[in-house]
């Protein structure tokens, strides 16, 4: 925007875009991931995401990892534009590297990183060039569990369970019913699988290959991907057009 010459750029378009502008913005995402879900459990945080990468409505990639470790105490999960997520991971790598280089016994916790991401996301939306993601940040530091989310325009909050995209509509009602403070790891995984199964049936971008991650005070694990058992041979599926007759 700053590079365009006043002579060639029409004044009324100068703020948004002009044909010879050097700056490009994400006006619409290209490769996207769908929901991520996170919840607090007895010892820490659990997160789950599937590994699909959609190119528009085509599920183009099926092994995209969308949960990563950040520093010693945090996990990040992302839905939305995959390349923007990769850029965010680069920012976080720099941040954590600098933090480690001090080597002074201080370290960034999940709350610090969440707040940093909020600033980054809101700053980019103010430049009309958002990072097209909804993020979930979870972690444990000094016995304190933390779970928060931030979206592409910088709206953020903390909760005991969070979800992005379709997960917000389909998974969170389940979590509101079934979440407890003292959930064990196995119970937590069971609830997450229930949520993912619902999403798999109803969200056309969801893929049956998912990864669970956990973080506790002294352990971070991103487990290998696996598939859920599903049942599609229900009577209602046998002749789908029977209950929806068309005009032809």
């Amino acid at each position, binding site marked *: 925007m700053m590079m365009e010459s006043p002579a060639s750029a029409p004044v009324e378009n100068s703020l948004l875009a002009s044909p010879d502008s050097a700056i490009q913005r994400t006006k619409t995402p290209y490769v996207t991931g769908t929901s991520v879900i996170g919840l607090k459990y007895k010892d820490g945080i659990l997160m789950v995401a599937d590994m699909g990468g959609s190119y528009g409505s085509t599920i183009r990639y099926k092994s995209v990892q969308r949960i990563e470790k950040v520093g010693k105490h945090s996990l990040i999960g992302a839905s939305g534009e995959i390349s923007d997520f990769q850029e965010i991971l680069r920012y976080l790598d720099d941040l954590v590297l600098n933090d480690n280089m*001090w080597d*002074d*016994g*201080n370290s*960034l916790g999940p*709350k*610090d990183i969440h*707040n*940093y991401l909020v*600033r980054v996301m809101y700053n980019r939306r103010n430049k009309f060039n958002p990072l097209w993601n909804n993020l979930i940040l979870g972690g444990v530091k000094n016995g304190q569990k933390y779970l928060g989310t931030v979206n592409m325009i910088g709206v953020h909050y903390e909760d005991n369970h969070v979800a992005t995209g379709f997960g917000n509509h389909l998974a969170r009602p389940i979590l509101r019913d079934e979440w407890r403070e003292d959930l064990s790891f196995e119970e937590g995984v069971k609830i997450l699988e229930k949520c993912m199964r619902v999403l798999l049936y109803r969200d056309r971008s969801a893929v049956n290959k998912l990864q669970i991650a956990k973080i506790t005070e002294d352990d971070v694990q991103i487990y290998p991907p696996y598939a859920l058992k599903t049942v599609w041979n229900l009577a209602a599926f046998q002749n789908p057009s029977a209950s929806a007759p068309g005009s032809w």
Partner: protein
Amino acid sequence: MFRNQYDTDVTTWSPAGRLFQVEYSMEAVKQGSAAIGLRSKTHVILASVNKANSELSSHQKKIFKVDDHIGVAIAGLTADGRVLSRYMRTECINYSYTYESPLPVGRLVVQLADKAQVCTQRSWKRPYGVGLLVGGLDESGAHLYYNCPSGNYFEYQAFAIGSRSQAAKTYMEKKFESFDGSSREDLLKDALFALRETLQGEKLTSSICTIAVVGVGEPFHVLDKDTVQSLINEFELVGEEAPPAEAADEQNQGGDAQPGDQQPADQGPAPMEM
């Protein structure tokens, strides 16, 4: 004409490998009235002597709050001290805007030292003429640092700067080994005793000193006059206007034995090594 030909420029070395302008700036710290700091595992106490410039004026502020978890005590050019305190406040506020957490003390001190160092390497600048005792609390515990105009910084259990600070250092050198486990009250007591040492027999009252505390569950704050006076009374520091003869001698020696006062500047140890 000049004291020596190598001291007209900050960036000019003497053949002995010294930077005289930098050393002079460190002398400025010794001219200021005393400031002391000491710390336990959980608390840091900063204390300073308030000396009015004339009978008609009030004294200048020597202790500044930087953030809830950091404060500074200064000796030397007060104006430079205020500029650096403002810089530190800005850094703290920017850090908590970005991370919503307090800036680690050691990191602020490094940034401050780097800022001071730049002034020793630019021909068009002058070094800051102020020494800062930076006290604060972060996740690695309570810390006390001394920041020098040369750009050097050191971490201490207890330290004193400014005029007659040697007397306070001598007092604290005798007692510092127990400071780590000290209670807040014991630490305050030692701070007042150490501060009294710098007064050379002048009576310690709440009107000539400032005391500030930061610690676990206690944001940085300057104690009000009544609190300080009641502490002085409690520790029976009153009514000792004439200290024992020995002590006074020791203080005299301590106060006078400052390198550079009598010796030519290119002799004796370089101040930055101390």
